[in-house]
């Protein structure tokens, strides 16, 4: 009997293999191979191209610790990630709530489309249109001056706020979508039960709805925080001289300085830091819920 069971369970995997194979193959080719190449590079003195000399070294990792600039930039990037994530929660969660619990039918579909539109537009187009809006004499400046009786100067271009605005705009759909899914799953009768027990709308929100939507908030935060910490496009284009972050430094190593080994090492340090943060933060958030 016991033997049969063992055989049965092993046999259970086999028919699934042909189905799983394409996925594993794809993972191997698309992610694992390039990533291991990068790990390899990060321990080299130089790229093994055009017959150049190379050797194994730890210098690339040591560079991070010997130059305080990298740590400063990493902290700035982490702060950027945190701020953008917070703004995405502040903007995305209420939007998701309205979508899931207030709007019905047609209007819900229309607003949903507006929310995910940034997803479908090209990243560069999105960023350059913000540049047109935010610069002096740009759309925001002109519009405000047309409406207001006094003269004001709006020039957000090449500033930290511009970077935040651009990033929040790019990433807020993630928060809206993940929160929408969890909010959608909360039965309206839970809200009514809370109210019937004497809780105000606000109390129901804090004690029932937000705790129950924590998984969506955490998923959204992780989806946003990680790429924002390593982002380089928005900081570069919208931030100008103020837009030097950890991500832009990594990008420089790959496209400008052509020091791939250092770029790779910096990326893996970032990856490690982000993983540690996620590992520490998510159980804490879950317990708080």
């Amino acid at each position, binding site marked *: 009997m016991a033997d049969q069971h063992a055989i049965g369970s092993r046999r259970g995997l086999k028919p699934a293999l042909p189905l799983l194979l394409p996925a594993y193959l794809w993972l191997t080719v698309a992610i694992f191979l390039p990533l291991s190449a990068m790990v390899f590079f990060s321990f080299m003195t130089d790229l093994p191209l055009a017959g150049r000399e190379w050797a194994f070294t730890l210098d690339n990792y040591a560079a991070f610790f010997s130059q305080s600039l990298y740590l400063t930039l990493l902290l700035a990037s982490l702060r950027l990630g945190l701020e953008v994530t917070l703004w995405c929660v502040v903007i995305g969660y209420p939007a998701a709530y309205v979508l899931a619990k207030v709007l019905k039918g047609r209007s819900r579909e229309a607003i949903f489309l507006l929310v995910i539109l940034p997803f479908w537009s090209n990243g560069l187009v999105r960023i350059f249109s913000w540049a047109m809006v935010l610069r002096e004499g740009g759309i925001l400046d002109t519009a405000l001056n047309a409406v207001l009786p006094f003269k004001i100067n709006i020039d957000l271009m090449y500033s930290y706020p511009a970077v935040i605005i651009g990033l929040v705009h790019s990433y807020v759909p993630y928060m809206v979508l993940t929160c929408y899914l969890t909010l959608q799953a909360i*039965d309206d*009768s*839970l809200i*009514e*039960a*809370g*109210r*019937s*027990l*004497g*809780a*105000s709308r606000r*109390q129901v929100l804090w*004690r*029932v709805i937000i*705790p*129950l939507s924590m998984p969506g908030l955490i998923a959204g935060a992780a989806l946003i925080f990680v790429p924002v910490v390593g982002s380089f496009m928005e900081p570069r284009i919208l931030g100008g001289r103020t837009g030097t972050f950890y991500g832009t430094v990594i990008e420089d190593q790959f496209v400008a300085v052509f020091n791939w080994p250092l770029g790779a090492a910096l990326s893996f340090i970032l990856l490690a830091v982000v993983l540690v943060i996620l590992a520490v933060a998510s159980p804490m958030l879950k317990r708080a*819920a």
Partner: protein
Amino acid sequence: MAGVQVANVSRSFGAHRALDNVSIDFADGGFYALLGPSGSGKTTLLRQIAGFDFPDTGRIAIGGESVERVPVEKRRIGMVFQNYALFPNMSVADNVAFGLSVRGEPKASIAAEVQRALDLVQLGKLGGRRPHQLSGGQRQRVALARAIVTKPRVLLLDEPLGALDKALRVDMQIELKRIQREIGITTIFVTHDQEEALTMSDRIGILRDGRLVQEGPPEEIYDRPQSEFAATFLGDANIFRGDATGNGIRLPDGTTIAAASGPSLAAGARASCAVRPERIQISTGAAKPDADNANTLKGQVSKRIFAGNNSTYFVDRDGQTLKVIVQNTGAERLAEGQPVVLSWSPDSTVLIAAG
């Protein structure tokens, strides 16, 4: 504790009138069942009383005070939902404590009250569990404990036993009734199940298409239905249609049926008579019917369904199939196809004006 007055309440959704001029007085401390087919407006009425939804016209008062402008959380009601609606992120004890803690009561007194409420529903030991670790009947009892722990003025239950199986349902009916009596709370209970309504409540209101069809104690509605709908919806009834004669009706074939109760109708008006299947005596014609069984009809047994303690006979008579329920006393059973005589007393017959 308080009574609830619903006066001329109407509520429409678009062109659909979910409630049409409904007036009911729910007495203080009473157990009231709202009965009606699906879509008749039972939930809608309950939601108006709870304050989740508001009437287009009409007034609702709880404890004599109009609640038009009172939001749900200030109405001091307890509500039990059909799907239990327990908070999945909280333990059983925290679920029960919710209503007390949002009121800012001190922690120590909350714990004591929660324990008392859980003991009342016989779940004293399960406070630490999560809702998903409970059976259906246990969840139901947590929902009840949660609703009554805040000492609401009115308890509203929307088909609270609908999701339970038959045996558990009966247990919960008894328990619910016991708890209701113990705390003496005005209770409004929505149900599909006529038996549940009959056995549990002091009064029953029957709704149909948003209108209150009839309202009163269970015995009164069962014995003296005022419409064919009430007669057939609450319990089973044989309906005869004909013209009013003054003390009954005349069927199209000339047979008269005498009725002792019902409205006085002008002779010749369209009317019907309702007779409960268990009030009809069935015999082969050899035996004499009871002396006061003034109403008699001849027919033929078309089918018999044996159900242990009783049997149901379907008797064909002039194109109509009548239903007769006979207690199983061990007497001789009638065969299908056998000619029979049906007889019953005018006291068991209710005259109903054509609707």
